[in-house]
């Protein structure tokens, strides 16, 4: 199993809208995590199951650590779909705070208005 990230890269770009290298990378990670989740869960189960022989558990540990970094769910980071920024991204709208402000002022976010109270 090669350690190259290119194995998770699709032949053809499967994203539309705003596209960024970091955005594509995050997208590939998401795909990798989705595809390898059962494998990871099986290995995690083997490692934690105390009724299994120690050798099997150690082997499972090794195999899990050998898996590619892209298959780790902690590698996923929410990114702004309009600008690719990774900071201050609102979960509700999946956009950055500045993009949120611009779109809200332009009336592109339904129901969002300027507030004063």
């Amino acid at each position, binding site marked *: 199993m090669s350690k190259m990230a290119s194995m998770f890269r699709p032949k053809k770009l499967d994203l539309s809208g705003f596209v960024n290298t970091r955005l594509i990378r995050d997208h590939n990670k998401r795909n990798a995590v989705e*595809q390898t989740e059962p494998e990871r869960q099986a290995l995690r189960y083997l490692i934690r199951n105390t009724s299994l022989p120690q050798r099997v558990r150690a082997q*499972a540990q090794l195999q899990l650590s050998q898996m590619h970094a892209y298959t780790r769910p902690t590698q996923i980071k929410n990114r702004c779909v309009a600008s690719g920024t990774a900071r*201050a991204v609102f979960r509700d709208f999946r956009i950055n705070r500045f993009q*949120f402000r611009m779109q809200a002022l332009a009336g592109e976010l339904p*129901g969002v208005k300027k507030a004063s109270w």
Partner: protein
Amino acid sequence: MFSNPTRSLLGAGRRLRVPLSARWQSTTPVQPSAPSPSPAQETKTTSPAESVPIPEANAAKSTSERMGALDNNARLPRSVQAVYLRPLRRKAEHGLPVCDLQLRSYSVENVEFFADFAIRAAYYLNLPVSGPVPLPRIVERWTVPRSNFVHKKSQENFERITLRRLIQIKDGNPQSVQAWLAFLRKHAFYGVGMKANVWEHESLDVGKAMDQSATEIQKTLEPHLAQFGQREDNSAGNNMFDVLDSDRFAERKSARA
């Protein structure tokens, strides 16, 4: 100068119009008996010299009057008239809640309009309705810096207020409740979201009914339950690595690569 004669003429017209129109109304039902002689006689009696222009004016007035009478007397069909009035409601006999429909929107007009529409639809489907109950608004607020970079001191507030209305159906026929929900879905209004909780009520012998239906349910579940458990000829034993290296996982790996 001109105002006085015109007024007098108009007055004459008015004076003339009253008996004529009354006569016209009276004659219409009695037309088959003798329609032609009676108007001729009356015109002769009033003014023989002005007999030619007056009937024309009278005819014009009578048509306009007829239109006016239509406006005044003719009523809209009941169903159309009801649109201008408060929605009609059925009375609940037992008051057993059957369905809760929650409408959500960001604008008052939309949600109010659609709640009204839903209540009217329920009336024609013979469903007793209570509501619309205005549920608490959901206010979400965000504060963001105005600039795209630093300058935290200058910020801006945004909010999104979700308005909610609850419409409850009481002791309605479950099929008509489904029909009502389907109708509302078909005529869904823009900017209004819907969420329905539907309850079904059983008779007191629920346990017996469930026992009876258990065998049928088991039959339907059999193909699904057959997927669970371990095969007797499973020689893999404790070795999960064989499973992980099996065709299924290999397939996934190859598909991903």
